[in-house]
């Protein structure tokens, strides 16, 4: 681990100033925020991240979860994943988000992990974590060792010849399906980013996971008014029953009209691309249709159009196709009860 300075930020302005101050002696990008620390500290221990300074966000008053005037919900960036998942308003209005969070990591990690940090967690590509191997995401231009190597966890959609990594978050898959909005703040002011525009595909700059600027702070994640609470499902397929990242995951949400037809559909995939994978065309396939497997399969085909495996991970394509159908089926039958009981915290 590289020696680093530590600053406990008082408020957002202080946190932002601390990215370069005092006296601007730290170049932009050389400091990192510290939230739950469940990712950044691991990366530092393995020398993947070497910030000169850690700016601790844990004192910021950004841990609240509150209703918006529009009828949505505002999740503080510093609210813990566990507190978010078990929040009564999240559970009742956005059970999809609750289920997705609880499908991730372990109770201990969820108790520490923050919502902002979850969006910014880095890929789990083995090579990214091993400084003994070249990796374009870790050191741009050095090459992608995963290509032709161990690619079981890697992307089947949207990859490039420079990087085939996946975004590992579960929470983000639900946020993508729920069309969340990310609130950002910097010295230049505040702005909002639609979730679909937040994460990005690797292209030839895989070092950038998202479209945030280096001098920005996530303050909140906004959920628009809920429409799909009664018919949603998060299905995560993984190597063991807990504490492992998704091979494939699906966030499915439906709103059914009185005749049982699909009034609105949302569908996002995790574990398959550099960002949560969503295609409005796939959802359009379902619009106005009865909630039946044949239509689910048609939507799956559109969502997975262009999917390509690396050999070892080819299985993800049929797995994803089946998972989409299953998740839509479960959602259509009605949101399942909580996956995890409160006592398990």
């Amino acid at each position, binding site marked *: 681990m590289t020696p680093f300075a530590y600053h406990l930020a008082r408020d957002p302005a202080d946190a932002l100033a601390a990215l370069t101050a005092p006296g601007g002696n730290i170049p932009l990008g050389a400091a990192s925020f510290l939230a739950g620390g469940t990712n950044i500290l691991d990366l530092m221990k393995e020398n993947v991240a070497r910030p000169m300074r850690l700016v601790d966000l844990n004192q910021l008053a950004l841990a609240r979860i509150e209703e918006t005037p529009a009828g949505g919900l505002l999740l503080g960036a510093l609210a813990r994943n566990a507190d978010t998942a078990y929040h009564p308003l999240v559970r009742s209005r956005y059970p999809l988000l609750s289920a997705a969070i609880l499908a991730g990591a372990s109770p201990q990690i969820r108790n520490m992990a923050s919502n902002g940090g979850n969006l910014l967690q880095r890929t789990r590509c*083995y090579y990214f974590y091993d400084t003994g191997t070249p990796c374009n995401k870790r050191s741009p231009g050095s090459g992608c*060792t995963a290509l032709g*190597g161990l690619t079981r966890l890697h992307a089947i959609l949207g990859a490039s010849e420079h990087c085939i990594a996946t975004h590992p978050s579960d929470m983000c898959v639900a946020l993508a399906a729920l069309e969340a909005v990310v609130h950002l703040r910097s010295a230049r002011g505040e702005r909002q980013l639609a979730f679909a525009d937040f994460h990005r595909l690797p292209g030839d700059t895989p070092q950038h996971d998202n479209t945030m600027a280096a001098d920005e702070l996530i303050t909140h994640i906004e959920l628009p008014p809920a429409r799909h609470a009664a018919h949603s499902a998060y299905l995560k*397929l993984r190597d*063991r029953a*807990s504490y492992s990242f998704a091979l494939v995951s699906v966030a499915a949400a439906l709103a059914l009209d009185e005749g049982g037809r699909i009034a609105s559909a949302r569908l996002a995939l995790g574990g398959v691309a550099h960002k949560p994978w969503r295609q409005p065309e796939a959802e359009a396939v379902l619009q106005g249709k009865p909630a039946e497997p044949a239509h689910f399969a048609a939507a799956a085909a559109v969502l997975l159009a262009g999917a390509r495996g690396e050999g070892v991970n080819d299985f993800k394509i049929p797995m994803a196709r*089946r998972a989409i159908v299953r998740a839509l089926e479960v959602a259509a039958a009605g949101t399942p009860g909580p996956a995890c009981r409160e006592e398990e915290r």
Partner: protein
Amino acid sequence: MNERIHDLQTPVADAGTGFVRVGMPVSRVDGRAKVTGEARYAAEHPAHDLAYGVVVGSTIARGRIAGFRLREALAVPGVVEIITHENRPRMRSFDLFYKDMTAPAGAPFRPLYDGEIHFSGQPVALVVAETFEAARYAASLVAVDYLPQQHETNLMSQLARSHKPKPLKAGFSPPPDERGDAEAALLAAAVRIEAEYYSGVEHHNPLELFASTVIRGEDGHLTIYDKTQSSQNSRWYVSRVFGLGKDKVTVRNPYVGGAFGSGLRPQYQLPLAVMAALQLRRSVRVVLTRQQMFSLGHRPETLQRIRLGADRDGRLRAIVHEAVAETSCYEDYVEVVVNWSGQLYACDNVKLIYRLVALDQSSPMDMRAPGAAHGVHALEVAMDELAWALRLDPLELRLRNYAEQDQMKGLPFSSKALRDCYERGARRFGWARRPLAPRSMREGSELVGWGMATGTWDAMQMFARAGAVLHADGRLVVSSAATDIGTGTYTAMCTLAADALGLRLEQVMFQLGDSNLPVAPIEGGSSHVATVGSAVAGVCAKLQKRLFRMARRLHNSPFAKARFDEVEFAGGGLRLRRQPSVAMSVEEVMAAAGEAAIEEKYLMLPKVLKQKKYLRATHSAVFCEVKVDEAFGTVRVTRVVSAVAAGRIISAKTARSQVSGAVVWGISQALHEETHADHRLGRFMNHNLAEYHVTVNADVRDIDVIFVDEDDRVVSAIGAKGVGEIGIVGVAAAVCNAIFHATGRRVRSTPMTPEKVMAPGGDVSVSAAL
């Protein structure tokens, strides 16, 4: 040395625990120390003026070190020294000096000896600093220039260059010669099956990281707290490698946070820490990182091929079992993979072949039930394949081929209650209700399957010494340089001693984990209780006799006319069996005899001549239920019953924990564990516990352990065999067989991850009855 060594912090049972008997479920005497954090592990012993060493590992798999660029690292404040092969202290030059007590044939790896690279992750430098943080930072700045050479780490591409292993390893026997004519019998058999079984690399990953704290005394004496399964093995190694007198080195391991075989050999942090202590003339600690734990040995990747031939009624006519495993380029690591197939079932025609491929990797290492965990797995999956080919119940097939005696020499078993294991396990599981055909049971979107397998392991005994001191206040200190890697050695030995002398458990202290204590073997091979336990029983028997003699000689002794066999030790002292009111406490006898303490020593030598007349083994029958969602290949193991015959059970609670823990590991072997190498780099890549998957709580449901009665006085004087390994053998096979029964698909490669289990193509109904 039998007196109490205070620094060892030997645990004692809680006051009020009271009298115990062998076979009772006794809570761990070391439990409180462990859960409160009082127990100190190798990296936790404080020392004055301690320096910290951090290891730098090679990034290439084969080649030479061309040079180091150390300026930046040396400039880090607090850095004391960077030790490499260029400036290390003197080490011995003959291979022989590097051979620890369990070394296989070959030239053991010598850390920092020269510039040759033998495997990726090999230590190439040790950065020593005043603080751990400085050492770690400087280690990240060490730049190494390599002259790489072409490496080869892929077993599957190198099968053609396999060789016959050199068999020189303690406890290893090469496959016996062919029995009968297996190929001919196979051709003539009415029913045949043939299949290949692959098992990937696994790493031990005990929770405690490998660590050594070398504390240098003013006189230069080294007291080393080491993570090892034998303090005496580590002392032997250090003395020989550095040419130090045995009296100059003490190794201690009073608490070990798991090892599973990884501590059978000294690991490289030990010589590195000693090197630094010698060079710098101060105390040094070296702790490996979790990532570096993947540069130690591993369970070797193995490919097996099994061919079975049988009569229509299921009687085995031929068994051919071949295995090819990997080893390093410098040692022939060997384990017993195929021999079990000549032992477990009655069959006249058996051919067994075991070969190795040398690869540019670190030497593999014994891991719980080495060889058997995957060797018996392959056999037991093959038996299941045969059962289905015959449309015969898999348990019935095993019973029809039950081996009543040793197949090679016609020797009897010293004891073999496997039939009882089958019967009681099957009854508890409800096996009789199993439909024969696969895909017969379904629950919602899941297929349900039931599978079973047999397990077996050797029942071994080594030699050991024990010493005991009984104090006037009734405290008993029993000593032997044994080890407790979490298995329950402390508890089992205290139980044996307390039972022997009729003392309360809290009066007894069993002192282990110091190389100066009486000789004990390495804790491994499931032999520790049978070995050290028999030594403890032996020394306690001597104390019994001595106490009895002392009591009888007393003026007006109530035992004046008694014979030894007329007294028993219970209730805190001795008493007449027929008239228990005639009794004296240990304290009374000691006081009356005017003794402050009495001491006895005992050397336990196995009764080799007698033992050789028997085949000695433990057995088990494992039954398992799985639920499989075949659309995705996800498997849940919902129920396991493991019935074990392992001699007399000394400590029921810790023994049960051994077996249920082993079942968990069996599930892990079946479904989760594998270290993936990138062969282009010659490097293991999922080297952390997020990506190296072990079974977690959510994967484990009901585990039911049954101990079937056995009492084997051939294996040991106390009737015990051993339970460390047997619990894992057969579990993965039972899971595999249950998956077949659920889905009709045979997965011949472990771990059976979702992509291997999931139904191929578009033939699967995803919306299986929700």
